[in-house]
């Protein structure tokens, strides 16, 4: 299982990278490995506002389906349209080209609730899924 230092993680296996109040959101390497071959990502609309804890996207693999929950609240700035054509980017590069949306944060304090890489690794290894 791969994690990346400096990102924040959720118990639902999403990651967040924050730069200048813009949060980029994707799912973790562990999440993609559990799903298997991703075949479709249902993408939200740009401009749509989301609330922490709500599902805003759905990832489908051949034999499974999983909601993606917003780790933070805000309005969706950009959606990764590449995923429409190449959903397997989620498998291949979960922390890079496989990102799902960017969000303009409304409450940066929400980030404090999230886990650091090490903490998340421990959470997963203790069977937290």
């Amino acid at each position, binding site marked *: 299982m791969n994690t990346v230092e400096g990102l924040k993680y959720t118990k639902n296996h999403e990651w967040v990278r924050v730069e200048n109040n813009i949060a980029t959101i994707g799912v973790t390497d562990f999440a993609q490995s559990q799903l298997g*071959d991703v*075949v*479709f990502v249902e993408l939200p609309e740009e401009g749509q506002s989301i609330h922490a804890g709500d599902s805003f996207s759905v990832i*489908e*693999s*051949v034999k499974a389906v999983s909601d993606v929950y917003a780790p933070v609240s805000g309005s969706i700035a950009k959606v990764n349209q590449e995923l429409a054509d190449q*959903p*397997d980017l989620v498998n291949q590069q979960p922390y890079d080209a496989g990102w799902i949306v960017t969000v303009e944060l409304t409450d940066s304090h929400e980030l404090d609730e999230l886990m650091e890489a090490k903490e998340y690794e421990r959470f997963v290894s203790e069977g937290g899924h």
Partner: protein
Amino acid sequence: MNGHLTVFELSKPGRIAVDMPTSDVPEESLETLVKAEYLRSKPAQLPEMSQPDLVRHYTALSNRNFGVDSGFYPLGSCTMKYNPKVNEDVSRYSGFADLHPLSSPKEAQGALELLYTMEQYLAEITGMDAVTMQPVAGAHGELTGLKLIRAYHRARGENRTKVIVPDSAHGTNPASATVCGLETVEIKSNPDGSINLEALKLAVGPDTAALMLTNPSTLGLFETHIQEIAQIVHDAGGLLYYDGANMNAIMGVVRPGDMGFDVVHLNLHKTFSTPHGGGGPGSGPVGVKQNLIPFLPTPVITYDGNQYYLDQDRPQSIGRMHSFYGNFGVIVRAYAYIRSMGADGLRQVSEDAVLNANYCLSQLKEHYHAPFERNSKHECIITAQKQKAFGVRALDIAKRLLDYGYHPPTIYFPMIVDEAIMIEPTETESKETLDGFIEVMRKIAHEAETDEAKVQQAPHSTVVGRMDEAQAARKPVVRWKD
């Protein structure tokens, strides 16, 4: 190669596979009969085939398909028993096959008698008070049953919205609850798939509409605490729903109605020998206890001792679940089956089905991990846990079975058992067939240890190899295009 080409690739303009008589009425131009804007602008590009080519095409396709008549088909939870041939014949009798559903009941007395009698038989077999034959599949039966339960609570002025489902349940159970506008509460099962009574006690409450249960469970084990379970649910004001997928284990031995269930659905295409048809048509009749009778779908078939009628005047009914009366043609087959077997025959069916499953288990447990010590009912579970150590998974074992001419068992279900392989032989398989299968399963277990690549890359002898399912789902090609 013929079987591989599609009907569109075989098509050639000018051919036809059935001769049409010419119209013998005085005709007018289409434009005078129908507004020009309503007329089709471009004819549908249907394939054009001669009759011999058409027959060869479909025969070739049939040769690329495996049914119960082709060989052993121990697909767990699907009850792939033999489909008696006389049942096929009787269902095609003109009085059934060419009977218009909107005939007046007077012209359909034989059909109504059959439906009415079938309701009585199924009520007797399940220990319920009344049955509707309308649902056409197991999932359709579930939806009907849950709607009956909702209507019952509603009529009592109660708004109960939660359905308790064990985590070992068939996926249809929670899906049916959702389609019925109910919320699913999943409770964790005991490791053997039985209901955890403590979890159940915590889950029930004034919002409990029902508990959905399969007994024997999806693990093929009898729920021995069923009376306590019924008590807990009934005390909370909820009802007990019986998923009849596993009814083949207990006919003539024990009845859901006597266990305390209020609503049951059956799968005539499982328990009562009607063909699965490649995924339907099925039939999923629903039986209920007395207090739910007013809510049954309309029309209800009634009998005054002389004539059969269709009763539409049922103010508390949930309404109609099917355009007509259900899959009548399937019901005719199941009726013929029950008449062929009788009470003794049906009990023998269950005894032999259970015997076959336990025999398979007894002969395989040395070679495969068997997670449960108890006697199973009509299906048994082994796992690929031992083989996993060699890199061989349940899927690989299933695919390797194809090379030996068997349809594989159900794999990866129930989900609470890792690497599950669920074998349901059914009663229509002989000891010789089972012994042949057991021998092959042992051989595969040996191959897993000595030549794992052979198993991992199976099948080798089928017309096609393993399919790229990810490609199919990423860029779906779901129709022919020129």
